[in-house]
């Protein structure tokens, strides 16, 4: 497969401080160690079936400081977080975690795919990432299973109150 062709890079697009920003975040510390060997892309199960998703390319964009381009890229959301790249990187770059750092930054700018909004709404409402149907809850009894532990919505909200991302997630699904 041919690596997705990119528009030429303009000097004005480059933010040289971006790599330091990432390196300060959990999981992004070793970004600058990447020497572009391509182990991540060649071992990536998603890259095998996608024409556009290439972890090596995302890492390079991050190193170069193509902040807007990488944070607005749809391919950023394709990583399945299987961590194969992280385990196999010869330079010890936590590739999947760098991608997660980039996704977190994209989300902070308001770019949160719907599937995550739905799960967050459900967790804030009753603790579970999926809305467990009433029928399932009742059926537990006939199956001889103990009642489901309850989620404490108030307590969950209290501990997440000061998290920045909440401003995009509050009030959803109520």
């Amino acid at each position, binding site marked *: 497969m041919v690596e997705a062709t990119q528009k030429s890079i303009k000097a004005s697009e480059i933010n040289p401080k971006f790599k330091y920003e990432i390196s300060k*975040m*959990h*999981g992004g510390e070793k970004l600058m160690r990447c020497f572009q060997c391509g182990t991540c892309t060649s071992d990536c*199960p*998603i890259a095998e*079936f*996608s024409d556009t998703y290439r972890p090596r390319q995302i890492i390079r964009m991050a190193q170069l400081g193509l902040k807007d381009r990488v944070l607005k890229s749809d391919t950023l*959301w*394709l*990583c*399945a*977080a*299987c*961590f*194969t790249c*992280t*385990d196999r990187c010869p330079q010890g770059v*936590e590739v*999947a975690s760098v991608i*997660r*750092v980039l*996704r*977190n930054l994209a*989300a902070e700018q308001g770019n*949160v*795919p719907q*599937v*995550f909004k739905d*799960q*967050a709404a459900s*967790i804030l409402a009753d*603790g*579970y*990432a*999926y809305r*467990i149907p009433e029928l*399932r*809850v009742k*059926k*537990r009894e006939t*199956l*001889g*299973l*103990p009642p*489901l*532990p*309850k*989620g*404490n919505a108030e*307590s*969950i909200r*209290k*501990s*997440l*109150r*000061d*998290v*920045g*991302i909440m401003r995009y997630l509050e009030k959803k699904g109520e």
Partner: protein
Amino acid sequence: MAEQEYLMFLGCAIPYRVSAYEISARKVLKKLGVKIVEMPEFNCCGLPLDPISHETMLILAARNLAMAEQKGLDIVALCPGCAGTLKKVNKMLKEDKALREEINKHLREAGLEFKGTVNAKHIIQVLIEDVGLEKIKNAVVNPLTKVKVAEHNGCHILRPKEYIGFDDPEDPKTLKTLIEATGATCLDYLDETQCCGAPSVGVNDKIALALARDKLRHIKKVDAQALITICLLSHHV
């Protein structure tokens, strides 16, 4: 052996759609003399929200660990995603004092605190390390000698190895060993440790299904009668 007691962490996917796994896990643990206590309160381990907010994931996981600490019991998780997340966060917060303090600020808002006094394990880790293979073999009533199966672990019980530290992510043996303890044959197949594609459902279904199709093809090629998986997302796909 002293009586083993664990706090049961069901996760979200099991009560949502895979009751059979929960029923058999509880029966097996009971038969092997492992006592189960239910979580007093529950919230998602945090893994699904890691892509949009690492901080949220850490807080959600730490809340569960803090509740387990109050009970004074280690956690047994049935879902590899939950097990991986709880193990990873437990290790991170135990080792990184600054991070622990940061997360505890959020937990204190809800009257909780992470101290780092318990462990989290997946059920297969409990079976192999704490119950022991001999005890399991002795408990088998009807050996499944004619059954040929394939296994799929799921990613988060193995990777990233630096944080999980369980089994060999490139050649995992635990699940195979447990399956073979029942008398069944566990077959090898191509790309056994490869992701099933489930996390991409909802983001790009086409890629998710292509991954699942590939895996099932490889399994079919070796003439397995069934696929044994301990991963709920994989089970669904």
